[in-house]
């Protein structure tokens, strides 16, 4: 308590005087019949009988009544607690809803503490100030915008639950700043445990008020699960990370389609990771690696993966023939390669490669176009570029993963435009390599002939082509591996609709080419492909807990100052009269109970004694 709003009310404490007088004049003494008062009159003549009133003696009731009066007087004086308050007319709260906010190192959880901090900030606002709330999760959104209702704001905050994914703080900050009225900077408050990347830290709006939650790093997580081919079938590589300061022992088990295939008790040294390899057998299925661990974040105690055997591919190569390409195709396991010189629409093939060939208007299969003589649909050729310089590389694209094209040299390429395509390599405005979707089929485009570049001579060439083939046929490893990543779906040939089933029982309808964005939960995402009403195939994608969210150690968030943005510059007075009145009510009940001879005290004592006695 830091002060009183109505200190004059303290004068009502004078009511204690009548209470004390009542006690002094009070003569409710128990009667005690004795043989004679003769001796007592003599003995007490100077002690009690001569006094017009009693000396005030210690009495529980008197103390309770004085305490009750003190509480009521205090309530009348309206005590308050002073705290730095948020200045300004508009507060934008950015609530971290990433996976680590579910940690329970602070009870009820980091998110619970963040809600409490948010409430304090809201209560510290001037009356009439408005509040906006932004949830920082994989897909940040404005929960409520510029409401002056504290209740509505708190309702919006209560609706934010921690996801099992990393948060997109950059997007969240963008949203927060977009809520500001131009020329009137709002107060922005970030309530987070600090799980921001370096890039995101740079994007924190200057002058942001930071309320950090979280206390400890204690946690053990299944931080990685890789599945692949082994000597005797499939194999899983599991990584367990102990973020605790002490060594931890956990029981690890690996299940395939809900059947345990391996288990082990392992000890993980403090603040280190450990890998274990397990043979899973020849059959595919859904793999779950889980640990039993008493820690602050149970959400990361399991990781998920899917084992799939690639089906044999039927590949058609249309063109005059290319040594490098044919040599490469021979290396693809379980692939049937046909060659055609004439134009073919590719119907019945898993993949068609048009190498310096005329591309029909309609191609009925996923296709890779290499320097086509006649541009395919959707591609406009405006000329030729000689010795093009590579000015753009989409290094973060999965197709260029582990692909080093720094030594690539090209003699000439078509100067094309492909609306809606993603450029992987570009020279100026012209894409050299691009990908896009056309109907239910995927397309890849290489604008230059392999013979007119040194690409086939690059170490990265087979890797790049394998990535492109995998992407075209939809058999590439899923781009999304962690909750929060959108799932890019390669539709099966002929797909007209996709039905996604999301962990937790929800479902979502998607169109071919549409990514599944609602991926904030870990687990298995089922994808069912339809051609009209007919189901033509299924795929399963597994998303695990993002490893970065398992590292619970709260991190500092440094914020650049911004004098223009209102911060914690106001002294807010939080009334505490409700607590004082609660105390007064409690005292009143105790006073009543005591004054009525403590009913039930004997029974309670007897009950406690009985419970304490051995059976």
């Amino acid at each position: 308590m830091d002060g009183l709003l109505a200190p004059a009310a303290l004068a009502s404490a004078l009511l204690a005087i009548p209470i004390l007088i009542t006690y002094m004049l009070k003569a409710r003494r128990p009667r005690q019949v004795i043989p004679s008062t003769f001796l007592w009159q003599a003995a007490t003549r100077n002690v009690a009988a001569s006094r017009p009133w009693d000396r005030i003696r210690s009495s529980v009731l008197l103390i309770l009544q004085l305490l009750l009066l003190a509480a009521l007087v205090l309530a009348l004086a309206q005590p308050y607690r002073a705290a730095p308050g948020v200045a300004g007319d508009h507060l934008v709260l950015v609530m971290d809803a990433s996976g680590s906010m579910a940690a329970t190192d602070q009870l009820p959880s980091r998110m619970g503490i963040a809600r409490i901090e948010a409430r304090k900030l809201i209560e510290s606002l001037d009356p009439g100030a408005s509040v906006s709330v932004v949830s920082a999760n994989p897909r940040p959104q404005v929960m409520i915008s510029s409401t002056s209702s504290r209740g509505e704001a708190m309702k919006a905050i209560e609706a934010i639950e921690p996801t099992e994914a990393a948060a997109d703080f950059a997007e969240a900050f963008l949203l927060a700043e977009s809520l500001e009225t131009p020329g009137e900077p709002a107060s922005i408050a970030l309530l987070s445990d600090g799980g921001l990347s370096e890039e995101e830290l740079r994007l924190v709006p200057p002058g942001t008020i930071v309320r950090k939650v979280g206390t400890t790093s204690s946690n053990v997580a299944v931080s990685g699960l890789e599945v692949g081919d082994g000597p005797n079938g499939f194999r899983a590589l599991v990584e367990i990370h102990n973020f605790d300061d002490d060594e931890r022992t956990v029981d690890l088990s690996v299940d395939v389609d809900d059947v345990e295939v391996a288990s082990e008790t392992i000890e993980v040294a403090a603040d280190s990771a450990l890998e274990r390899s397990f043979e899973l057998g020849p059959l595919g299925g859904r793999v779950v690696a889980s640990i039993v661990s008493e820690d602050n974040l149970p959400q990361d105690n399991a990781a998920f993966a899917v084992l799939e055997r690639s089906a044999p591919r039927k590949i058609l190569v249309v063109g005059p023939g290319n040594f490098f390409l044919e040599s490469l195709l021979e290396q693809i396991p379980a692939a049937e390669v046909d060659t055609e010189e004439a134009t073919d629409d590719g119907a019945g093939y898993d993949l068609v490669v048009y190498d310096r060939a005329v591309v029909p208007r309609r191609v009925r299969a996923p296709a890779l176009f290499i320097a086509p003589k006649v541009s395919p649909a959707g591609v406009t050729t405006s000329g030729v570029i000689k010795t093009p310089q590579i000015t753009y590389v989409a290094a973060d694209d999965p197709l260029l993963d582990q692909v080093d094209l720094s030594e690539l040299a090209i003699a000439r390429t078509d100067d094309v435009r492909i609306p809606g395509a993603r450029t992987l390599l570009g020279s100026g405005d012209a894409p050299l390599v691009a990908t896009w979707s056309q109907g239910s089929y995927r397309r890849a485009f290489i604008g230059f002939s392999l013979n007119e570049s040194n690409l086939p001579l690059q170490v990265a060439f087979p890797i790049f082509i394998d990535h492109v083939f995998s992407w075209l046929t939809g058999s590439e490893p899923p781009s999304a591996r962690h909750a929060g990543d959108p799932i890019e779906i390669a539709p099966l040939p002929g797909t007209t609709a996709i039905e996604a089933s999301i962990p937790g029982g929800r479902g979502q309808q998607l169109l071919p080419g549409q990514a599944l964005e609602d991926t904030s939960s870990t687990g298995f995402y089922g994808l069912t492909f339809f051609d009209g009403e007919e189901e033509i195939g299924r795929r399963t994608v597994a998303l695990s807990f993002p490893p970065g969210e398992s590292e619970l150690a709260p991190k500092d968030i440094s914020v650049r100052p911004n004098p223009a943005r209102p911060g914690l510059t106001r002294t807010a007075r939080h009334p505490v009269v409700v607590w004082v009145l609660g105390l007064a009510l409690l005292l009143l009940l105790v006073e009543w109970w005591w004054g009525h001879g403590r009913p039930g005290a004997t029974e309670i004592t007897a009950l406690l004694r009985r419970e304490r006695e051995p059976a």
Partner: protein
Amino acid sequence: MLLEPEFLSRLERLSLATRGRMTGAYPGGHRSKRLGSSVDFADWRAYVPGDDFRRIDYQIYARLDRLLVRLYEAEDEVTLQIVLDATSSMNFDSKFETGARVGGALAYLAALHGDRARIWVVDAKGIRPSPWARSRDSAIALFKWLDKVEPGGKGDLPTALKRFASAGGLRGVTVLISDLLTEDWEATLRRMASPGAGGALLHVLSRAELEPAFRGDLLLVDSEAGGTVEVSLSDQVLRQYRKRTAEWMRRVSETCRRRDLHYELVSPDDDLDSLLLVRLREGGLVR
């Protein structure tokens, strides 16, 4: 019965003691103020016609040639008058029962040795005597009479003793059995004057009166007068009470001494054997 037969048999060894001569209505075992016919020589006097020739001291006549008559001590019975306080203040902590037992025991041992005894009961109705006890049987009858006495009510000891005296009660040995818890205790003792007869005050006070066990804020109600006193019994007040009580008892004892009364503090907790066979014997009330 008021007293157990075993106790009564132990009392048979005792008899009432008197410190001076006293005149009884009948011959007895105590020295009388009168001259009589006992074997104890008392004095001579001149012979007058009519005296018994057998009492002339011829040896004196032979030496002095005068006729002198030998006189002997007389022995009379003693009258024991016991005043038993039966007011309300005695009706606590068996104080009245204790007083009745002690009084009954004294009456019994007096009657057993040829003396007369009776008990005067003081209660709200005033003072009334019991039948005389002159023998074992009449003493038992006195016990039965005493059994029927119900203590209670407000008494007036000085007035009762005044009536007692006017009824001739002060002849002989007078024993007052009371707690004396009255403002008029000195007046009461003044009316107990019995010079030379060896009276006594058996001061009956219970342990609860000497060492009160209650604490806290109380309204003390006088069982007899109905008056009240508000007290807050702290340790300090209790210390003061004990001090005042001891001082009052000392004054009572001193007053008794001045009035030739034996003072004996009697508690309901006392052993009756010890009281009668030791303490009252040492005090000269019995022998």
